[in-house]
């Protein structure tokens, strides 16, 4: 926990929520599509505060405005538009979207795998399949959320590339021109690719986490920003939004328990 501006204590999960929200700062009127509990809370926080024009889905076929609580299926919300699955591809392929996905494995270039682990013909673990990862990463902005930062996830080489990383996008030349991985947010810190060779870089750590801890939990050589700062705490208004409006059931604390 860290001290908050309200005098109380802010949890690690709440720092994660703010770090996710910051990924969508400045995105304007595009679809923010954060997948996962803390990503959804963070996306809704961004829209309820500093990125009010973001467009978001109900996870199914509607575009809805809020804020409304996560984990409540019939929470009252305003329907803005109809967006069945096939319309989603119109959004993705036109580039008007910033998705935040998970990753079972990710390498230093941002190549991501959540399809399966092991051999193609007989995987050790069948996971999600390729889902929309190839299209997402080559057509719109992508960020990643990893609630369990470890060298099992941050690996030297992923078993199969479902989401495209910077090295592969660069090799495509002009065909890779819409590729951008904005951030990787984890329970330990925030990473980006703002290096000359587009290798992953640690930019922020969660309060109480050292740079060495992040390095030790990463299975490849991590670039380190000249000045690694701490993730910022939520403002009092943001904290109220998180705790009272968007996640009153505190589902965030289940995804990232406080250390």
């Amino acid at each position, binding site marked *: 926990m860290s001290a908050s501006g309200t005098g109380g204590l802010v949890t690690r999960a709440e720092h994660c929520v703010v770090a996710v929200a910051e990924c969508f700062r400045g995105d304007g009127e595009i679809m923010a599509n954060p997948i996962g509990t803390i990503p959804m809370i963070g996306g809704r926080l961004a829209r309820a505060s500093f990125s009010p024009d973001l467009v978001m889905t109900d996870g199914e076929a509607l575009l809805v405005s809020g804020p409304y609580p996560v984990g409540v299926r019939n929470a009252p919300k305003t329907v803005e538009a109809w967006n069945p*699955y*096939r319309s989603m591809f119109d959004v993705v392929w036109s580039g008007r979207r910033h998705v935040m996905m998970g990753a079972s494995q990710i390498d230093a270039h941002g190549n991501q795998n959540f399809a399966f682990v092991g051999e193609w013909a007989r995987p050790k673990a069948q*996971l999600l399949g390729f889902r*929309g990862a190839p*299209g997402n*990463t080559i057509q719109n902005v992508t960020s990643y959320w990893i609630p369990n930062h470890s060298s099992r996830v941050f690996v030297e080489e992923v078993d199969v590339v479902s989401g495209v990383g910077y090295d592969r996008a660069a090799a495509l030349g002009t*065909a890779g021109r*819409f590729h951008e991985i904005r951030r990787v947010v984890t329970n330990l810190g925030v990473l980006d690719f703002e290096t000359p060779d587009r290798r992953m870089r640690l930019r922020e750590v969660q309060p109480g986490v050292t740079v060495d801890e992040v390095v030790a939990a990463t299975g490849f050589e991590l670039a380190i920003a000249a000045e690694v700062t701490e993730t910022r705490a939520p403002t009092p208004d943001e904290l109220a939004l998180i705790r009272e409006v968007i996640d009153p059931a505190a589902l965030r604390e289940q995804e990232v328990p406080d250390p």
Partner: protein
Amino acid sequence: MSDKRVTEADVVAELRDGMTIGIGGWGSRRKPMSLVRAVARSDVKDLTVVSYGGPDVGLLCATGNVRKVVYSFCSLDSIALEPHFRNARQAGAISTLELDEGMFLLGLQAAAWRVPFLPTRVGLGSDLMRQEEIRTVRSPYDDAEELVAAPALPLDLALVHMHRGDARGNGQYLNVDPYFDDLFCMAAKRRFMSVERVVETDALAGGGPIQSMRISRLMTDGVVEAPGGAHFTECVPDYGRDEAFQREYTTSAKSPEAWATWREKYLDCGDHAEYRKVVGL
């Protein structure tokens, strides 16, 4: 005026070993499960199944009717990974064509439009391109960009489930998403639609917005009236997903014994009418 009403057994009689079948719906939503169970009870083998996968794929993997799955995910929605599909993959029992969700759409659309592929940027740079079935094409225009030629996914047979339909083969969905059911039908040589209820044609336009009448009789060869036909998948507004039943289904993947028990009770019980009695639909 033709009456296209048929039974699940009539549909299964159309199947041949090695056929490619497409199944509509999405994950564990509005799947034509009465038709899928009829296929699963048959001895047809070596099927290629093309699906935005849910328990349809899992069930046919568990019963051994499948040789190959063309998919981009296989999920039960509230349970992230389809357990029987997972077992089949991890046992090396099936081969796959891995696709991006949108590339899948293009494949159905290409087959529906009778072209061999549709161009897209989707797939470039990813390991989808390691598959021999997915190739690239160069733009003949000045940009000369190299694109993925998303391969057409022509189907021998398509199975979809709608809320309402008439005897002539027009169909209507009443939930928020048509999914890709019309494209599955358009991509297939033979098309079979199960419906919760067969109604008079005039009752379709009276039963929902005109946009809900997504399936025309141009797209179908047979209609199966199957109340509860999507069970245990979601078929709102008629009924939600049977989560308790889905958990029981998931548990059946834990051991051969558990599967044998489930299979005897819910599959070997007989046709859809018997299944409805067993489940209490």
